[in-house]
């Protein structure tokens, strides 16, 4: 299917006459619509439909929702999910606010550290850190053992919902940090100066001008954190917290079966909340352009810190850095540990775990590389095609391609997984195997989930290619197809690579959709293997080693994409001058 879409895009790009160019456009549209229809719209529609259907008669009904509301477990799950998401936003804000404020308001060396710190947590799957956090912050973890020895106290960092909140806020606070920092940096300095000029200063200035102007960035980041936490399946499961919405959906489908309506009702709840928070985020960011830097100076006026402030700033940053690096540190130690239990540090160190995962469990790694690469490839082909159709043609309704692809943002992984199972469980391949147990369905799920990000990158890249550059080529005799090949695609390379890497890196550690779709371990990707290993105390070392490899893969590809993007920008800047 994906191959067919790719072909139609290429054929659109290779034709010469306007008539056939139109043909190519329509073929591309048909391919994209078919792909998204089959693997996004139909499965999700199916899930929503089933939630409103009477399980036995198939009649439209609200009885499933009524059952949901009558069931204490589900209501508790809902309350817990909501509570955990809100508290994660609160704690993520507590981590992010001082960092954002320090870096944008003051001149000091720590800014670079904070920048780096902002990406580190994102290159690790949150559930991978969860086990390491248990070992460090858990009831019998390093910190509490030490606290017990010294002060005879035990802080329940990781008990029940606390653990989920802690892990999620440490993992996702960069979303708030990045958005808030960007939004503070983008405030035109004149906005602040105009207020000072009219007699406003100090905290009033912050409250009346700076804070309202930075609000959109904060809200955008916060709603992203909210929805990521609300939808997440793997972290609560790994911490053995089952009474939350996503785990309940998963457990109902896997234990009770595909016919049980509760999983679908929960899915609808998850979708509704996703859409709501995306809506809030879009409301917040709308019209933000106006306040952004115009001619005459950007960003808030920077101040120098006095020594006391500097000490305070470094202390806060150091503490947060320690917290944020804790999962990585813990995971690294665990992957090298012989035994680590009831002691602040492991008893001894070994490389056996790495030998084990690189040997007998190599398929997890190779599967991940294969799946994530294929998903990334599908995403950039679709992304480039959609970007071209939306930005460079006048075909009526072309924006719906963009809307449809972006709609995947609002579909939690669990829901997509359930949708695939529901829609295609009964559909067989020629070999007799069910479509849903064929490994390629995992690739498709990953591609659909990551498409919105890749599409944004491709759109941005194409917007930067001025139409006049294309017109100049056509004016000199190049056909539409040759113009695309010789001018548009080379100039878009940076964006396409960025899109590919984003898709690849995030697909490599995705677990929620995958978890629903993996049918046997030999087809499973790394994230799933990690999850399986982490189930048993004996597998923890190997799981941690696998986690470190995941961190390595994601870290390397992120680094690579920054280097490539930098080189691309430098090359273009050189050409422009």
């Amino acid at each position, binding site marked *: 299917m994906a191959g067919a879409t790719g072909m139609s895009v290429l054929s659109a790009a290779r034709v010469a006459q306007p008539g056939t160019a139109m043909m190519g456009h329509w073929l591309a549209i048909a391919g994209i619509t078919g792909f998204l229809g089959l693997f996004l719209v139909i499965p999700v529609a199916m899930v929503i439909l089933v939630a409103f259907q009477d399980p036995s008669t198939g009649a439209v009904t609200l009885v499933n929702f009524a059952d949901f509301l009558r069931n204490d477990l589900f209501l508790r799950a809902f309350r817990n999910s909501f509570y955990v998401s809100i508290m994660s936003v609160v704690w993520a804000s507590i981590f992010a606010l001082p960092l954002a404020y320090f870096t944008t308001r003051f001149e000091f060396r720590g800014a670079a550290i904070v920048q780096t710190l902002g990406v580190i947590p994102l290159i690790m799957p949150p559930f991978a850190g969860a086990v390491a956090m248990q070992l460090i912050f858990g009831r019998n973890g390093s910190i509490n053992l030490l606290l017990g020895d010294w002060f005879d106290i035990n802080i329940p960092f990781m008990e029940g919902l606390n653990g989920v909140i802690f892990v999620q806020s440490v993992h996702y606070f960069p979303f708030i940090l990045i958005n808030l920092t960007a939004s503070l940096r983008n405030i*035109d300095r004149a906005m602040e100066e*105009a207020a000072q000029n*009219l007699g406003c200063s100090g905290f009033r200035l912050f409250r009346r001008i700076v804070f309202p102007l930075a609000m959109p960035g904060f809200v955008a980041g916060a709603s992203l954190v909210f929805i990521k936490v609300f939808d997440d399946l793997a972290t609560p499961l790994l911490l053995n917290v089952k009474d939350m919405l996503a785990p309940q959906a998963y457990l109902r489908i896997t234990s009770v079966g595909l016919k049980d309506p509760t999983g679908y009702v929960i899915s609808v709840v998850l979708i509704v909340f996703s859409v709501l928070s995306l809506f809030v985020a879009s409301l917040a960011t709308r019209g933000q352009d106006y306040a952004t830097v115009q001619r*005459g100076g950007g960003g808030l006026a920077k101040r120098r810190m006095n020594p006391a402030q500097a000490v305070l700033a470094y202390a806060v940053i150091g503490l947060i850095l320690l917290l944020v690096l804790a999962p990585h540190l813990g995971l690294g130690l665990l992957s090298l540990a012989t035994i680590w239990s009831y002691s602040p540090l492991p008893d001894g160190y070994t490389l056996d775990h790495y030998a084990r995962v690189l040997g007998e469990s190599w398929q997890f790694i190779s599967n991940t590389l294969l799946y994530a690469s294929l998903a990334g490839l599908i995403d950039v082909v679709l992304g480039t095609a959609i970007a071209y159709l939306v930005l460079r043609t006048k075909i009526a309704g072309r924006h719906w391609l963009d809307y449809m692809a972006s709609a995947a943002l609002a579909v939690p992984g669990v829901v997509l997984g359930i949708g695939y199972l529901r829609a295609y469980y009964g559909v067989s391949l020629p070999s007799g195997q069910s479509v849903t147990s064929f490994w390629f369905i995992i690739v498709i799920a990953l591609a659909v989930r990551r498409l919105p990000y890749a599409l944004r990158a491709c759109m941005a890249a194409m917007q930067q290619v001025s139409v006049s550059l294309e017109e100049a080529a056509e004016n000199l005799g190049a056909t539409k197809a040759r113009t695309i090949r010789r001018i548009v695609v080379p100039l878009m390379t940076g964006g396409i690579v960025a899109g590919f890497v984003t898709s690849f890196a995030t697909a490599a550690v995705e677990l929620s959709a995958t978890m629903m779709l993996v049918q046997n371990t030999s087809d499973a990707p790394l994230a799933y293997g990690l999850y399986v290993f982490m189930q048993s105390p004996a597998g923890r070392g190997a799981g941690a080693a696998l986690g470190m490899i995941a961190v390595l893969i994601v870290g390397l590809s992120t680094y690579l994409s920054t280097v490539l993007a930098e080189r691309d920008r430098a090359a273009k800047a050189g050409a422009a001058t």
Partner: protein
Amino acid sequence: MSANDNLSRAEAADIRIEGVNLSYGKTHVLKDVSLAIEPGEFFAFLGPSGCGKTTLLRLIAGFNVAQTGSVRIGGAEVADLPPWKRDVGMVFQSYALWPHMSVARNVAFGLEERHLPRDEIVRRVDEALELVELKHLRDRKPSQLSGGQQQRVALARTIAVRPKVLLLDEPLSNLDAKMRVQVRSELRELQSRLGITTIFVTHDQEEANSICDRVAVFNDGAIQQVGTPIELYDRPANLFVANFLGTANILDGKAAGAGEARRFEVAGGGHFVIPADAPVEDGARLVFRPQDAMIGLPAGEGPAGAVVTREFLGATMRYVVRIGDGDIMIDVPHRAGAAQFQPGDRVGVTLDPARAMFLAR
């Protein structure tokens, strides 16, 4: 009209700047700047980008701090006051309207910061908006306004607090050419109605000349000359001012002879007769405006040269003539059917001796 009377009650203040030096690291941005601006004056800071004019404006508003020197507004030293205690109204180049507030809230902001009574604020917001004819848009958000309207809201926001002086940082630069001409005459009218001391920063000599009482020409962090637009044009203090305001012919050469025979010998050949008492420093160059010389058939006093090119500008024909080593421009008023010269023609140039200027730098 009562609204305007209320706003204009604020007393006009003078501005005295003395010995101001300002550096960013090794960059000396303002070099020993001194300046006196009289109460009620409409004053322009004119100069190319990077000349220090905006830096000085921001210094007056309190957004820059000078290493030395004093700034007095209405007799009071303000160098140590933060921006919010200076009572100096500034209209920003980007307008800096706060997007999260309506037009009326933007205008009310400064009054609220001054803790005026509620009804007083409402009244003065109305006055200010009436003055810029935008009362009907009071509930709009800034993003819903055109560039010209945003500019007027920014102006209303500033004059609503009745500041001692009004600072305008390139207020016309974000408007299109037609709006620019309209807004600048509105600005002039508003300023004379309010009688407020106003500084207008611009890089456009036409803007400065058309609306300002006096102009300070800036270059490279120093004031080159202060005067009325006509003084600056007719008697530039140096080559920079001569070149920056209008078009000037500049010829290398040296003065020779005395009395009746005193003349300026152009490098490369040819000479102009100049007044016997004309002060010509060593290394000074001959400077004159294109409309102050005439061309005719080669004869008599002036030097002769070949027409290089000509440009028809409508009211005038601009000839470029090679004299010695240099090319000079000569504007001849155009009338239908008048005789014309062609490129390559040999012509004689005569210069009104009274119009010749000699500038060493």
